[in-house]
């Protein structure tokens, strides 16, 4: 026998009741008359409040039985146990649960962070190409074009990566010193880079680097990773997710950049093109900003220029017979390509 309060969920009236166990049911007698039997199986324990135990019913949402001062000792075995965190955590305790979660989280994180390369490689090239079409359209396809310039570019690509039909390179009229690999594997050189380069060997190094991205499917991988991270970290509040996302993504992209550099070094060696001009190119690019660049190396997507230059320099083989990538006439044709070709018109091309 114990005294308790009852809300029946039908009206807001509070009833004084006394309860006692009767087989596998709870006998509830109201002080103002009337008794009811509630099967123990329908009872759920809610979180205790200020020392009071509170029971609810699975079948009646507003029904509450409030036991002031907690569950009496004689009922404790029959009634559901108190809950705090809910579910698994109450069953095994806070600290064991936290440890178990941490282990699971570590495994999930490791799987998750290592899956983008696998997922990226599992996506057929044709789908990646269609995705590329959707994202960037024919950007880069409508590049600068002159017969001599096209021939020179083709010769350059053939030197760096002989007889690879999947590689597609174009030059666009953008005055930025950069080159990009687009989703779908198209390599686009910005004219600003061609103008900033002092020799075709420097352009060859850059193209080798971009070919590395194409071979490793780095663009697809980073798309998959970005998508996954944004879904996973969306659950965190505010900027924490955003910062974590940036840090993780840039760590991975630096790894991919370093790998693409290795590929470029290999291609240059096989093609017997000297890596020294490429190294010089990176040193020039680093220039005055080298210090600032190192400070932010953890947030930048590319490895520090000086480090990149050093790796290319290290691959220089003093015994090798290096040959220029293009002759002077071809180099002039490549550099003059954008100036000589007509301006592209803008039109809808989906």
């Amino acid at each position: 026998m114990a005294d308790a309060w009852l809300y029946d969920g039908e009206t807001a009236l509070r009833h004084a009741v006394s309860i006692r166990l009767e087989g596998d049911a709870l006998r509830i007698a109201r002080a103002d008359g009337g008794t009811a039997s509630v099967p123990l199986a329908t009872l759920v324990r809610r979180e205790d409040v200020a020392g009071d135990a509170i029971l609810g019913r699975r079948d009646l949402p507003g029904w509450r039985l409030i036991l002031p001062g907690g569950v009496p000792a004689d009922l404790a075995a029959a009634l559901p146990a108190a809950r705090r965190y809910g579910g698994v955590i109450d069953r095994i305790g806070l600290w064991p649960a936290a440890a178990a979660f941490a282990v699971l989280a570590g495994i999930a994180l490791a799987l998750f962070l290592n899956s983008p390369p696998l997922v990226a490689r599992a996506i057929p090239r044709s789908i990646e190409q269609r995705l590329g079409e959707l994202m960037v359209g024919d950007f880069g396809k409508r590049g600068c074009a002159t017969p001599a310039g096209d021939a020179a570019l083709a010769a350059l690509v053939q030197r760096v990566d002989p007889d690879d039909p999947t590689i597609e390179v174009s030059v666009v009229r953008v005055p930025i010193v950069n080159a990009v690999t687009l989703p779908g594997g198209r390599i686009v050189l910005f004219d600003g880079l061609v103008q900033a380069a002092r020799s075709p060997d420097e352009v060859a190094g850059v193209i080798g680097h971009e070919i590395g991205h194409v071979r490793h499917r780095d663009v697809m991988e980073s798309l998959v990773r970005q998508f996954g991270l944004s879904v996973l970290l969306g659950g965190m509040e505010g900027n924490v997710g955003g910062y974590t996302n940036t840090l993780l993504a840039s760590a991975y992209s630096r790894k991919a950049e370093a790998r693409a550099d290795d590929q470029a070094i290999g291609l240059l060696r096989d093609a017997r093109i000297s890596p020294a001009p490429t190294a010089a190119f990176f040193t020039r690019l680093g220039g005055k900003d080298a210090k600032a660049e190192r400070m932010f190396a953890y947030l930048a997507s590319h490895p520090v220029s000086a480090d990149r230059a050093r790796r290319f320099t290290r691959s220089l083989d003093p015994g090798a017979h290096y040959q220029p990538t293009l002759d002077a006439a071809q180099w002039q044709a490549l550099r003059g390509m954008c100036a000589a070709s007509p301006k592209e018109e803008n039109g809808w091309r989906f």
Partner: protein
Amino acid sequence: MTDDQAEGDSAFVFTGDWREFAPIAFTNLLLTIVTLGIYHFWGKARVRRYLWSNTRFIDDRLEWTGTGLELFIGYLIAIALFFVPFGAINLIVQGVLLRGHAGMAGLIVFCLYIALLYLFGVAIFRALRYRLSRTFWHGIRGGSNDQGFAYGLDYFWRSIVGTLALGLMIPWSMTSLWNRRWNAMSFGPMRFSAEASWGPIFPRFMLFYITPIILLVLVGVVAGAAVGTGALAGISPNTPPSPGIIITFALLGIAFYLVFFGVLGIIAMVYYSAYFREAVGSMRLGELWFAFNARTMDWVKLYLGNFALVVVTIGIGSIFLPYRNWAFFVRHMEAYGSVHLDDMTRSMTRTPGQGEGLLDALDVGAF
């Protein structure tokens, strides 16, 4: 049986203690970290259970019955309905931009924002409905039969009209939207009624327009005086300014910036405190009238306190913000009139199945 409550202390009492809340906040933080953020939703439910159960209305405490699972499912639905399509549109916008059609891309982004405005409205309504449907008092809950889609349209056009005429209609759009959503809500068998009007709060809203003008005039007068007294004689267009002058100007600029935004922030609270008093003060439920008694200084103290708490603890203090905000809200709530407990019967409104996912995703407040 009648339960009268009119005299004496407020009908709302907050009985929580931050020392009781701290273990909840810290274990939530721990579990959220080790579950890579998934426990966040369960933690939120636990925080609300504590806050609600320490909120006494007349003679008994409130009860929060929402679960972490509901919030989690709501969040997943929001991702499927919201992030995935918006991500796809983002890709298309990029494609359109790269094809050189900035105008078209702008149009798509514009349409996206229009759609967002509508979704914001729906999210605010549905979050309020969800919260009422999970709030129990004496075994009775609240809710609404509206799904919030009509409110979304209302929110959409009233927000746009509000910004017309240099934003002068914002008080009207805020109060009329408050009325719209609360008039659709009920507790037990009774509907809320809200009749907030924009007239009483409009004078304070005018401060947004008058104060910047006064500030600019003041700055003009000070600058004029400086020129007049020859304080700026050291500056001539032909010689480079000395470092002292540059620093003075920089400091003046920073001071102006701080004063300008500090003053704007205070005006915002002057206005908002009046808005919230008017909004809550116009509400009725059966024979109960509500009131909110926080003055501008109370809001300023709340915000400065929150700000200091977060800054001093390098962000960790933010786990106490739900506690501070709720305690502030309850301590300033009042109610007058009476509740007839035998008339207060079970709510017949449909209970929404999932939580405030869209609101979580869009990060807007419900009240």
